[in-house]
């Protein structure tokens, strides 16, 4: 057992896979000598050398184009886009090229690549360095989308993403970088498309992602004191989506909530709620409720950002009010 922070788990997971597969390479801005601006790639240059761990210019299109071309010609790649907001700069290559080329060519080419990126708010970086954009990736056919909340999942899902033959967008949450946990010894490989029941409960189901998972768990502790038994599902991978775990939980509890960091419209929770509405309707005892960031850009001031993101208080109060009223929020 080793205790690792979330940020250390990133390098730990990558190193595990680079040792396994000598052809695996990575590229990105400041990832080599500097070890990444979030220190998520510390030590990789030393262990694997400059041919496999490459610094790039500030050229997001060139980075992802290089990843695409290498992957489609037999070299698996991990590409880092420093902040997920910057995906907008190279979204053509993600959404139009990488995601669609397998389909357009009827399966002639494959893209064994992972796009790692620091996602999410809570760190006072303002509107252009704090967004939660996992829903951008979720809505593009051809991509897989992963967003872990705990160090062990960072390692295991990183390994699964790297070994997956499809392109994976891997969202590392900025606000979780310092979170610590014990990691089991030996090789860790998880499975995409599997949610994790982070806390078992019988009265309500709350689906959360990334930094919203610890907040939801904290809210669940408080709800328990009020006699509300809360099941917390860490969705972990948006594509493929583990609807079985979600629907089974709703069948048990009869109530469904989502906690989403993304702005309101078209957040991933809307898709989950619609699936529950279509396929779990007769198990529901009340409306499904989405707890999200309002439909606004994120502000920089700490007090304002705290108001915007779903907080433990807001999660607790929303669920309490809904349960007490026997339905509506």
């Amino acid at each position, binding site marked *: 057992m080793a205790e690792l922070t979330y940020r250390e788990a990133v390098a730990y997971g990558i190193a595990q896979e680079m040792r396994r597969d000598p052809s695996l390479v990575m590229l990105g801005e400041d990832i080599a000598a500097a070890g990444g601006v979030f220190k998520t790639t510390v030590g990789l240059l030393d262990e694997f050398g400059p041919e496999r761990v490459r610094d790039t210019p500030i050229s997001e299109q060139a980075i992802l*184009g290089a990843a695409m*071309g290498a992957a489609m*010609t037999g070299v698996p790649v991990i590409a880092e886009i420093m902040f997920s907001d910057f995906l907008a700069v190279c979204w053509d290559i993600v959404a139009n090229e990488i995601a669609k080329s397998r389909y*357009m060519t009827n399966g002639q080419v494959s893209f064994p690549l992972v796009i790692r990126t620091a996602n999410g708010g809570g760190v006072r970086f303002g509107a252009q360095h704090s967004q939660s954009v996992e829903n951008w990736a979720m809505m593009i056919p051809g991509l897989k989308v992963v967003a872990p909340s705990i160090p062990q999942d960072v390692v295991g899902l990183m390994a699964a993403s790297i070994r997956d033959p499809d392109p994976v967008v891997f969202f590392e949450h900025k606000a979780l970088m310092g979170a610590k946990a014990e990691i089991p010894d030996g090789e860790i490989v998880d499975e995409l498309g599997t949610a994790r029941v982070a806390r078992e409960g019988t009265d309500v189901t709350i689906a959360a992602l990334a930094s919203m998972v610890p907040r939801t768990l904290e809210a669940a502790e408080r709800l328990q004191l009020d006699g509300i038994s809360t099941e917390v599902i860490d969705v972990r991978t948006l594509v493929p989506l583990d609807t079985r775990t979600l629907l089974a939980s709703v069948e048990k509890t009869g109530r469904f909530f989502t906690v989403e960091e993304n702005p309101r419209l078209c957040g991933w929770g809307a898709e989950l709620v619609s699936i529950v509405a279509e396929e779990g309707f007769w198990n529901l005892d009340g409306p499904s409720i989405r707890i999200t960031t309002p439909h606004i850009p994120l502000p920089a001031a700490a007090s304002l950002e705290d108001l915007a993101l779903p907080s433990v208080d807001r999660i607790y109060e929303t669920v309490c009010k809904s349960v007490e009223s026997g339905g509506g929020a």
Partner: protein
Amino acid sequence: MSTETHIDDRYDYALREPRLPPPIDHSLAEASIDLEVRIGMYRTLHELRGFGKRAHDLFLQNLVKGTTHLSLGQEAVATGFGAAMQPHDYTFATYRGHAHSLARGMDPGAAMAELLGRENGILGGKGGSMHLTDASKGMMGSYAIIGAHLCTANGAAWSALMRGTDQVSVAFFGDGTTNIGAFHEALNMAKVWNLPTIFVCENNLYMEYTPIDVVTAVDHPAAGRAAAYGLDEILIDGNDPDAVHLAARDAVERARSGGGPSLIEAITYRSGGHSRADPGKYRPPEEVGAWAERDPIPLYHARLLSLGVEEERLESIQDEVAQAIDVATEFAKAGAEPDEGSLMTEVYADGGSRWRN
């Protein structure tokens, strides 16, 4: 009171001074190019021309839907490069990619069937005219949003270095691409990583419907930017297969031997419009006429005759190619509509499109 606007030659491009083709460099007849290579290029020119004309005809017959972007008039570029590349090299093209695909050995029947949206198309009907790909021939795709594929070509070149092969990666693109950011990102990275990437700008003088010079800061949209990336300025006659072939040979040799990337600007002209929707009326008629006189096929026909190739041999090549285009057309027309089940396949590597359990 009239407020009639006066549209002069600054805005009505057809009124501009025509930009005329360069004179033919007859000394290229003396260039050291094997005669059989030249005869092969003559055949390729006809294959590309025949395919393009047939695609045009099939569009008018409403058998090709959507749009097509033809290389009619520009075939010498794909031809000259095709003859300089090895089968294991990589090609990346734009939506105007039929010529480059065929020049790398894509089966013309499978290409034509793809234009017709048939099951026997090279992409099973899923890609269409703008996305011709044959990975088995190193033809790694035709990309319909300009710029990105230059970055992707770098990736294939990087991959070749990582795998220790001597493959080179060639990206073809138009003059319009030189004004998008990805062009500049790709050139910079290719140079600093010393990648075996060859960037080939087919400057046909128009970015879609607008003359390239009115929207570009330098006279030569690609060559004029080369110095900014530490590259040589290479400007060639893109309507002369020998000029293209020589430049291609040099660039391929440089890339293979570790000399890094090249940027080549080939001046050419498209006989028709940008796409099927475009009659090309924005071009001065005198200009269109002058470039028609500089069509690569008669030029090359005359050159081969001057080198002693018999007219009969050239005629028999033309006949063989014409037959092959007919065969390809029949193959395409005989194809079935794609199977309905194929709609949901090949989104992911497991062959399917499943996004949930």
